[in-house]
Structures are given as structure tokens and as C-alpha cells.
């Protein structure tokens, strides 16, 4: 009896503590501590900058995915979409060299092309899902295959490389910093803020949540369900195009191995962050932490030689599961029921 009484006190304190929100943050802090213990260089400025910059790709895509998933959809095509957009951007920029030279104009044409393609691809996904009445899983599984094979075709099975002179002009978009932070991190921050405002402070965000929790009720509440759902895919496409714009200057190339499994990483980031996979509840802040957690895991595994290379996938899987378990926070309540 005394034992239960003793354990009762800390439990109530657990209850007041919001594990749902803090779970991913705790997981990330734990990971950082482990990283630091393995090697103090983990917290060096250079490594943190690398980490943040790397997270930007998946992070930006995952912000878009948060909307799609919150509204009860799913987009499996984002990795292939990024690859094909990167490929077309490179082809367009290489082609524009003759007319516009190797200056900023050409880069802007490439970026404009990326945005148009992203929005277009997102619209196709959304239109087929809503008006075509095909499950999002199937539509985006289909477009995933289509985009992937298109980039293979454009690259003739090999690799598309950006003209060397344009690379010089475009390179700063990935490698340069502004006020101490690399440009990709700034883009990530801006996209995150816009995403947060859109999800939490606008009617559009509320509609996404409403549709995700119960589509029929949303429909009877005079929400234009099809239109809102299509918009989430367009938003996702826009996010993919932004991520691609900062991805291309990194190595100046695209091939069929570009963006492989990004869709799963983006979805994992969203779920780790606390968004519900079946829709109806979304958290942008959590998604950002989720993206950071995923990148940090990879980084830590490169920082140690204690774990066999072959078990990297196992470690990643375990940490993802633990992170989600932490943020579920149900175990506090379950103990109480006992």
C-alpha cells in the first residue's frame, strides 16, 4: 500500500507534464547528449550547421506532408517528385545558357520552373484524389513510379549534371550563410513559420483538421472538402519544389537515386512529431523536431564505430519507435489504471 502511495506522487506530476508535446523534444535532447558523449565534436558549430542544413530538405517536405496527413491524405510521390523536378530544372537551366548566359537569370528560370512543376505535380495528385475519387495511397503510388521513371529516362539511366558555370552562380544558395545560418536553414525556418501560421491561425488550417477528423461532417459543415484537400497536395508540391531549389546547388546533379525514400522520411518526421497518421490532428512544431531527430540519428551513427554498419537500419528503426512511444505518453495513464 505504501508503495503505491509513494509512486502515486510522481505520477501526478507526470500527468501535468505534457508528454505529447515534449516527447519529440526529449528524444532529440537525449540524442544530442548521446552524440556529445560519443564525441564532443558532435556539438561543434560545423557539425550543428551541417545537421540543420541537411534537415532542411526533409523538414521542408515534411511541413507540406503535415497538411496532407492532417487532412487525412498521404503523399508517397514526394521523393520521386523531388528527383524529377531536380532533373528538369537542370535540363532547363543547361538549355537556358545559350539564350540567357550563365547568370542569375538562368538560375531564376530554373527556380521558377521548379515552382511551376511542384505546384502542377501537387495539383495532379490532389485532382486525381478528390475529383478522380481514387485513394490517395494509390494515386501517389502511381505518380511515384511515373516520376521516378521519368527522371531515369531524362538522365538516360545516368546522371544529369548542371553546367559548371551556372553551378558557380547557384552554389551559394546551398553553401553560403546569412547572419551565421546557412541559406537552406533560413528557408526551412521561413517555411516552418508560414506552415505554423497556416495550420494554427487560418481557416484553411482548421478546415484541414476538420476534414481529417471526419470528412462527412466537414462536408455538411459547408467546407469545400475537395478544394481544401487539393490545396494540401498543391502545398505539398510547393514544399517539394522549394526543397529541390536548395538541393540542386549542393552537388549540381540529379539521377534516379536522388530522393530515394524521402517520402518515408518525410512521413516518419510528421508522425514522430505527433501528427496523427489517420488525420485530424497536426503539429508543425513536432514535424520540425521529427525531421531534426531523423537527421541526428544518421549523424550519430556516422560518429561512432561501436555499432556494426549493417545494423544502422536497426538503430534508426528503434530510435524512431522509441521517439513515437515517448510522445504517445499513454503509459502514464495506463499505470494509473493499474
Amino acid at each position, binding site marked *: 500500500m505504501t508503495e503505491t502511495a509513494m509512486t502515486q506522487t510522481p505520477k501526478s506530476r507526470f500527468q501535468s507534464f505534457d508528454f505529447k508535446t515534449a516527447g519529440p523534444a526529449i528524444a532529440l535532447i537525449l540524442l544530442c547528449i548521446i552524440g556529445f558523449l560519443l*564525441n564532443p*565534436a*558532435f556539438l*561543434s558549430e*560545423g*557539425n550543428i550547421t*551541417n545537421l540543420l542544413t*541537411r534537415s532542411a530538405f526533409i523538414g521542408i517536405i515534411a511541413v507540406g506532408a503535415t497538411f496532407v496527413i492532417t487532412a487525412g491524405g498521404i503523399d508517397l510521390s514526394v521523393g520521386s517528385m523531388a528527383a524529377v523536378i531536380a532533373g528538369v530544372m537542370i535540363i532547363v537551366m543547361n538549355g537556358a545558357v545559350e539564350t540567357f548566359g550563365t547568370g542569375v537569370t538562368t538560375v531564376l528560370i530554373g527556380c521558377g520552373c521548379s515552382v511551376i512543376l511542384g505546384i502542377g505535380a501537387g495539383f495532379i495528385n490532389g485532382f486525381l484524389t478528390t475529383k478522380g475519387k481514387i485513394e490517395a495511397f494509390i494515386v501517389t503510388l502511381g505518380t511515384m513510379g511515373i516520376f521516378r521513371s521519368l527522371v*531515369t529516362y531524362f*538522365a*538516360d*539511366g*545516368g*546522371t544529369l*549534371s548542371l553546367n559548371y558555370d551556372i553551378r558557380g552562380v547557384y552554389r551559394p544558395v546551398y*553553401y553560403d550563410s546569412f547572419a551565421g545560418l546557412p541559406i537552406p536553414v533560413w528557408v526551412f525556418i521561413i517555411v516552418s513559420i508560414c506552415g505554423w501560421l497556416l495550420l494554427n491561425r487560418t481557416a484553411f488550417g482548421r478546415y484541414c483538421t476538420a476534414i481529417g477528423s471526419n470528412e462527412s461532417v466537414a462536408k455538411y459543415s459547408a467546407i469545400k472538402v475537395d478544394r481544401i484537400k487539393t490545396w494540401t497536395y498543391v502545398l505539398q508540391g510547393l514544399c517539394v519544389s522549394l526543397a529541390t531549389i536548395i538541393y540542386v546547388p*549542393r*552537388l549540381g*546533379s540529379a*539521377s*534516379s*537515386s*536522388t530522393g530515394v525514400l524521402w517520402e518515408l522520411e518525410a512521413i516518419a518526421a510528421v508522425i514522430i512529431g505527433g501528427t496523427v497518421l489517420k488525420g485530424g490532428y497536426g503539429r508543425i512544431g513536432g514535424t520540425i523536431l521529427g525531421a531534426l531527430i531523423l537527421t541526428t540519428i*544518421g*549523424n550519430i*551513427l*556516422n*560518429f561512432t*564505430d561501436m555499432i556494426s*554498419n*549493417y545494423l*544502422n537500419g536497426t538503430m534508426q528503426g528503434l530510435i524512431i519507435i522509441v521517439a513515437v512511444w515517448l510522445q504517445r505518453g499513454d503509459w502514464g495513464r495506463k499505470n494509473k489504471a493499474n
Partner: protein
Amino acid sequence: MNKLSKISALAAAVTMSLASLASAETIKIGVSYPTPTHAWAAGMNWHAEQAEKRLEALYPDVDLVLVNSPDPSAQASALEDLVSVHGIDALVVLPFESEPLTDPVLNVKKSGALITVVDRGLSQPGIEDIYVAGNNPELGRVSAVYMKSRLKEGDNIVILRGIPTLIDNERFDAFMAEIEGSGINVLDHKHANWNRDDGFEVMQDFLSRFPDIDAVWAQDDDIAIGVVAALKQAGRDGNGMFVVGGAGMKETIKGIMDGNELVPVDVLYPPSMIATAMDVTVAAFKSNGPVAGRYILGATLITKENAASFYFPDSPF
């Protein structure tokens, strides 16, 4: 009138030559390989097409049928079609995977065709008449020998490996065996999956982790591109630092010809091996000497001196 007579003469000539082709024994050779979905395979596809043109021009009675397949079961079906539809006399096959394609190739052999296996072997010995392959252990060993020639005792290197596979293990084990006892420290090795992006990220992390790295064995030219980008970003590409890749990508070889100090050499694992296999297979019908046997291509060290003979500017790889 003149024109018309010319055309009819031409038509007659074509008909006759076609007839003679049909009557003379046409040697049909099927060439089956995986669909090019990465750069090396795209290079292989290109070399196969070049070899087809060259050999068919050289021998009018040789007909090469090129088929590529996206997965092992599609390749198995393709092999059946080559026998049933084309009635091939010989097969040149680069198996997608060894296990699932052993039986299909055995069935082709039962039809009486000559079998040439390229690169990846089959899981049963004795099926192939001719075997043509690159040399994975040698690739590792040659890379290590070069490292030893450039580095001294106490110098540090890091290794970026490929996808965890048998090929990767063969290369890595041979490298480690050769480097052993040289006093060169291997700080760590990680898989970069023969991929530029992974090469970039793994190298960034190595650079954060180890303040003193003298050389990098990237094993593959795609990984090396990522490694070089990470080195340049960190400003650690000076002081005699160098990167050794492998395979024979045209951009890398161009760089070697131009005297690139950061990637001064490359170790060959030629995508043109399929062309070699096609040559040898045709020779089995045309040569006056025996050609059956194992043809293991060298893992040549490509330096500034010999680079020109490995440079194919039109190939996608």
C-alpha cells in the same frame, strides 16, 4: 528512267542480300542485362549498344539481340523469349541476381546455346562456357597499393564503402589486407551506398569527427563526387589531400587527364565489360582458336599517362 533503274537495282540488291542472309546461317546472340537505373549500368547499356553496331557491321551474319529487364523475374522471362522467339545460338547474360537466374540460364543452356556470363556469377558452377568479369578484390588491392605509395606511416585515411553486398565486402577486405602492416591508420569506414548524397553526408561527418585526415578511399566515383564537395565546403581539400574512387566515370577520367590533384587517379571497374563479353562470344563462332574460359579484366590504375585510353566522352557514364 535512270533514277528508277537505280532504285530497282538497289531493291534487287537488297532483296538478294536479304535472301543470302536468310540462307546463310545467321548467328543469333541474345544479350540480356538489367535495365540501366544507375550511372554505371547506363554506361554498360551504352557500351552494349556500341558493341552491337560494331560487331554487326563487322560480321553481316551475326545478329545481336539486346534486351534489358527491370527485375530478376522479368529477366527470367526475357531469357525464355530469347530461346522461344529468337532461337538464339548464344547468350550473353549479366544476371540481375545470381540465385533466381541460375535455373533460367540453365534452361537456355539445355537448348544448346553457348552461355557467356558477365560480372555476377551464377550460383551453380559449370553452367557458363565463358565468364567475363571485373575484379573486385583487385580493385580494393590496387587502391591500397596506391595509398601506400602516397602515404607514410602514421597517416590517417577514412573509407566510404558501397551498399552492404558481397561485392563491397570483396573490395573492402582486399583493401584492408593490403593496407595492413603499412602503418597507415584506417580511422573508420561507413557505407555511402555508391551514392553522391550519402558520400557528401558521411564525409561531412567524418570531417567533423576527425581533425586530421590525409586521404579518402571512396571506392566509387559517385561517392567521390560527394566526398570532394564536402572537402571543399570544409576547406580541407589542400595540403596534398587526395581521394581515390573507382569504376571509370568519364568526368573523373577527364579530371585525371587535366591533372586534378584532389582526385589524381581512378581504379577501373569498366562498364565496357559487356562489350568485351560480346566480343569474346562472337569470337567463339568466328575465331580459329578456342575461346571458352574465364576472362577477368584488370582493375587498372588510371593515371594521367594512360587515362586517354579509358575516356569515352559520349557514354552517359
